[in-house]
């Protein structure tokens, strides 16, 4: 149990209001596009209209002649500096500006720099590019067929196959399947979707010829990692690069990769010696920056007749687009997809994934997700429902029967993960009770008699977050630790900096609460700063729900180092032995005489004014925390839907989310995260897809076609929790940001399928748009 501090201190467990909101709600946030530097000029991308075409010529003459245009950079120009290609996080490379050919619609072809934004946009229209169209591959299955057009001519391997990866025991799994009395299978496609953060990507690159320093203000979820990438790729000494991530308007993984726009802005600033700003439009963001998912998956479960699961077999085709730019730091090409055994105790499992190139935008980012966990959780939760259907068993009962029992934790999964802690049944029980599961089943039975359609969907997901331990992760060889540096000022106020970067998660509040919890300094007196590589300690950034598991842990450990020193100072001030001191948040007192005490503020002042002999002045500490394991948050979501037989429209009547993310820092922020993630999950399940037609034209390239949920579509979310602390995290927290996005899609889809299961429907692919449901109703002869 976490000791609860007073509301004045505002440590863990207090729903204190978000400190950063003070500026946000006044419109005083400072985003990249708010950065205005003297002499700043503007960049604009010229993009390919074709999904696959040979570049015959680029004529920049007309564009260059337009008054106000300063430069037009092409791939050939970059090639001279060996910058036409750049490495990706997945050991592939991608074009910065196209040379030779283009491989997806909207690919970057040239970069125009002009004195103002409008001139840059006009000049981009004047760049004449001659293309010769080539056959287009949008279907990853076809990309693997013999004789398929070769997309990546730059590779030695002359086909479109990127990788084959497998994990688990193939032979043992085959054997179980051969003898299993029951086999259930589902073929589920997790469509290509996009995080569509409120703020698109952009940067201001500012190279000073006077100092030789490059400052890049950018929409970065990982400023330190990006600095290192710029140093390694661009050859600029790392001490001469400063990356500043100011306020970020949502990231969700979209702001992890390095994009061509950043590189071109830097090149332009180096060339011109002035600051260069580049900000994407909404369509550019949707069409060219990191998409998510696009996994064609099959899951098969072998089970006993009474529903005990024996083995799981998963086969997946992963569409990575034109370049394998999957922004993931794991050592496995399909990330953490092998968490696909989920919350269930499978004695045997086997999982294989093949990655494929197609003529689509590159990416494969972890959209509010730890590197393919969302795909995995969706697949297993769908497959379990199909098994329940095949066995004519209640899906809750089937889950209950197969949950990993609490006494088995730490649990070693058959695909190799060690789950730190879990207790799945209580979370499901609360969710079922809260929603009134038994009554709903009765209601459903009644409604079916009347020909009405309602469904109940359950998802009992297990997450894997907090990237990550060195055995499974690195970026360019750099371990996935994260950091915190705390300085206590003489007046007892504090400043703390981290290697992570908030994009709206509320770090300025939650990290301050950790410091408050550990040192008793009120959270209001702790300033948190992230995002400036000149001042913050090195870290790998914020994504994959890793901030609390890594930097959060580092904050606690650094605070404890400070407390150790504070104790020495307190003993000196109280003229007693260190061992005679007791701590309560905010002060040390002498055992047995609580009136003899020194507050942390007294101690801080003494650290600068009255230092014990032999002790260094000051009160500060830094910690780099390399997590010993990942953390495994979990929960059960239950969704009730009603279907309109006239329109095929699905209405979410109720949604109960019971989450377990271990010990909670700020319950209000956790609830907010869950609301946001569920809303995104709803959009993925019902509304969103970045689709391509057969010529490779993007059919979800603007908000006209790629729909965002508003208050109108969003149902009321009901949340609850259980608490199973992580045994290895310094204060038992697990991370929560992505759970609702990971866990909810299956709950929505399971509910819709459940509503139609008596008609013989076993699966519907997302997004479940009304037309799709209506077609099914019509086919089954029940459309009104």
């Amino acid at each position, binding site marked *: 149990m976490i000791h609860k501090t007073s509301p004045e201190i505002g440590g863990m467990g207090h729903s204190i209001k978000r400190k950063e909101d003070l500026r946000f709600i006044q419109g005083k946030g400072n985003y990249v596009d708010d950065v205005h530097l003297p002499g700043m000029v503007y960049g604009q991308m010229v993009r390919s*209209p*074709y999904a696959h075409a040979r570049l015959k010529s680029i004529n920049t003459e007309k564009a260059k002649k337009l008054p106000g245009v300063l430069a037009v950079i092409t791939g050939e120009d970059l090639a001279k500096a060996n910058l036409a290609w750049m490495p990706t996080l997945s050991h592939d490379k991608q074009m910065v500006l196209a040379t030779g050919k283009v491989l997806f619609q909207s690919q970057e072809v040239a970069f125009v720099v002009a004195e103002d934004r409008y001139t840059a946009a006009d000049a981009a229209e*004047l760049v004449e590019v001659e293309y010769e169209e080539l056959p287009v591959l949008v279907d990853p299955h076809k990309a693997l067929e013999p004789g398929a057009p070769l997309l990546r001519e730059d590779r030695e391997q002359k086909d479109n196959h990127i990788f084959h990866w497998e994990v688990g025991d193939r032979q043992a799994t085959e054997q179980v399947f051969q003898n299993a009395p029951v086999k259930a299978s589902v073929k589920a496609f997790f469509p290509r979707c996009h995080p569509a953060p409120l703020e698109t990507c952009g940067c201001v690159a500012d190279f000073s010829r006077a100092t030789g320093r490059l400052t890049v203000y950018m929409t970065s979820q990982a400023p330190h990692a990006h600095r290192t990438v710029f140093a390694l790729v661009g050859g600029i000494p790392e001490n001469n690069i400063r990356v500043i991530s100011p306020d970020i308007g949502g990231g969700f993984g979209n702001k992890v990769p390095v994009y061509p726009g950043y590189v071109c802005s830097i090149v332009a600033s180096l060339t011109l010696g002035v600051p260069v700003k580049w900000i994407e439009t909404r369509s550019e963001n949707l*069409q060219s920056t990191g998409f998510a998912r696009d996994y064609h998956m099959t899951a098969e479960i072998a089970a006993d007749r009474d529903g005990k699961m024996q083995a799981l077999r998963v086969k997946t085709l992963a569409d990575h687009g034109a370049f394998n730019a999957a922004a993931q730091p794991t050592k496995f090409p399909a990330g953490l997809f092998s968490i696909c055994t989920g919350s269930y105790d499978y004695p045997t499992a086997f999982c294989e994934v093949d990655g494929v190139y197609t003529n689509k935008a590159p990416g494969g980012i972890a959209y509010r997700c730890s590197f393919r966990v969302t795909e995995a959780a969706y697949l297993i939760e769908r497959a379990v429902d199909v098994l329940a259907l095949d066995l004519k068993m209640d899906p809750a009962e089937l889950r209950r029967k197969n949950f990993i029992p609490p006494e088995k934790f730490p649990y070693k999964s058959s695909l190799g993960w060690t789950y730190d802690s879990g207790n799945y049944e209580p979370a499901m029980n609360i969710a079922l009770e809260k929603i009134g599961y038994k009554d709903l089943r009765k209601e459903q039975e009644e409604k079916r008699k009347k020909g009405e359609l309602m469904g109940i969907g359950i998802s009992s997901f297990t997450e894997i977050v907090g990237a990550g331990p060195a055995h499974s992760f690195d970026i360019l060889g750099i371990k996935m630790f994260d950091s915190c540096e705390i300085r206590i000022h003489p007046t007892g106020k504090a400043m703390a900096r981290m290697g992570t970067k908030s994009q709206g998660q509320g770090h300025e509040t939650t990290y301050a609460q950790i410091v408050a919890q550990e040192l008793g300094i009120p959270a209001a007196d702790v300033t948190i700063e992230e995002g400036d590589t000149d001042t913050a300690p090195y870290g790998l950034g914020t994504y994959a729900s890793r901030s609390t598991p890594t930097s959060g842990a580092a904050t606690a450990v650094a605070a404890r180092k400070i407390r150790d020193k504070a104790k020495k100072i307190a003993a000196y001030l109280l003229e007693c032995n260190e061992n005679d001191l007791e701590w309560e948040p905010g002060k040390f007192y002498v055992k047995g005489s609580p009136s003899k005490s020194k507050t942390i503020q007294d101690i801080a002042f003494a650290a600068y004014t009255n230092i014990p002999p032999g002790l260094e002045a000051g009160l500060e500490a830094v910690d780099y925390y390399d997590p010993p394991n990942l953390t495994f948050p979990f929960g059960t979501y239950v969704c009730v839907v009603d279907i309109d037989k006239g329109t095929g429209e699905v209405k979410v009547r109720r949604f109960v989310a019971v989450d377990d993310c271990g010990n909670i820092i700020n319950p209000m922020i956790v609830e907010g995260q869950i609301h946001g993630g569920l809303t995104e999950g709803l959009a993925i399940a019902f509304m969103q897809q970045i689709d391509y*037609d057969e010529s490779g*034209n993007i059919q979800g390239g603007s908000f006209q076609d790629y729909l965002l949920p508003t208050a109108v579509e969003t149902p009321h979310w009901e949340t609850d929790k259980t608490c199973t602390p992580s045994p290895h995290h310094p204060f038992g927290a697990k991370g929560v940001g992505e759970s609702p996005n990971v866990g909810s899609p299956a709950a929505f889809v399971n509910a819709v399928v459940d509503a139609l299961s008596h008609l013989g429907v076993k699966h519907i692919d997302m997004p479940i748009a009304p037309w799709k449901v209506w077609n099914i109703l019509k086919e089954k002869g029940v459309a009104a």
Partner: protein
Amino acid sequence: MALKIEKTFTVQEPVEKVWALLSDPRKVATCVPGAQITDQVDEKTYKGAIKVKVGPSVTDYTGEVRILRLDPQNHEIEILGKGQDVRGRGSASMKMTGKLRALPDGGTEVASVSEINVVGILAQMGSRVITEVSNIMFGEFVKNFQARLQRPLDAPEGQATVAEAQPISATSLAWEATKGLFHRKS
């Protein structure tokens, strides 16, 4: 993005006169809004251009028009047009089959099937917009075609045609497309 558009309309002129117009790409082109024939390559091949404006996006296609099949007995023609936008914003192709049928009242029925393929910026607008654009263009074409029939076929092409080489208006198009969307919903 591929789509197929089938259209049938009637004109109050005898079939032979309509055929004389339909089988001459130079003349037909003057009826297509925003289009013009710029050169003749051989007996069956012409060079041409068409300007299409949808919202803020103007596409200037230049390319070729080729007569694939000409059947004067049955009054059937098959034409293939292919073009690329001059500023590299995409390409389009259209294969059109036209067939005439004499009507008992002395008029002629024109039945056409067009298979259109659009690649590039325009295609991102999706089939609901492209179909609407095609509908509007076709409506304009029918008006021009009928007007052209009113003049002697050997008269020089020029001012008299309704919408020669003018891009279709963005505002009216957006309006028509919007109306179209609402109509289809009902």
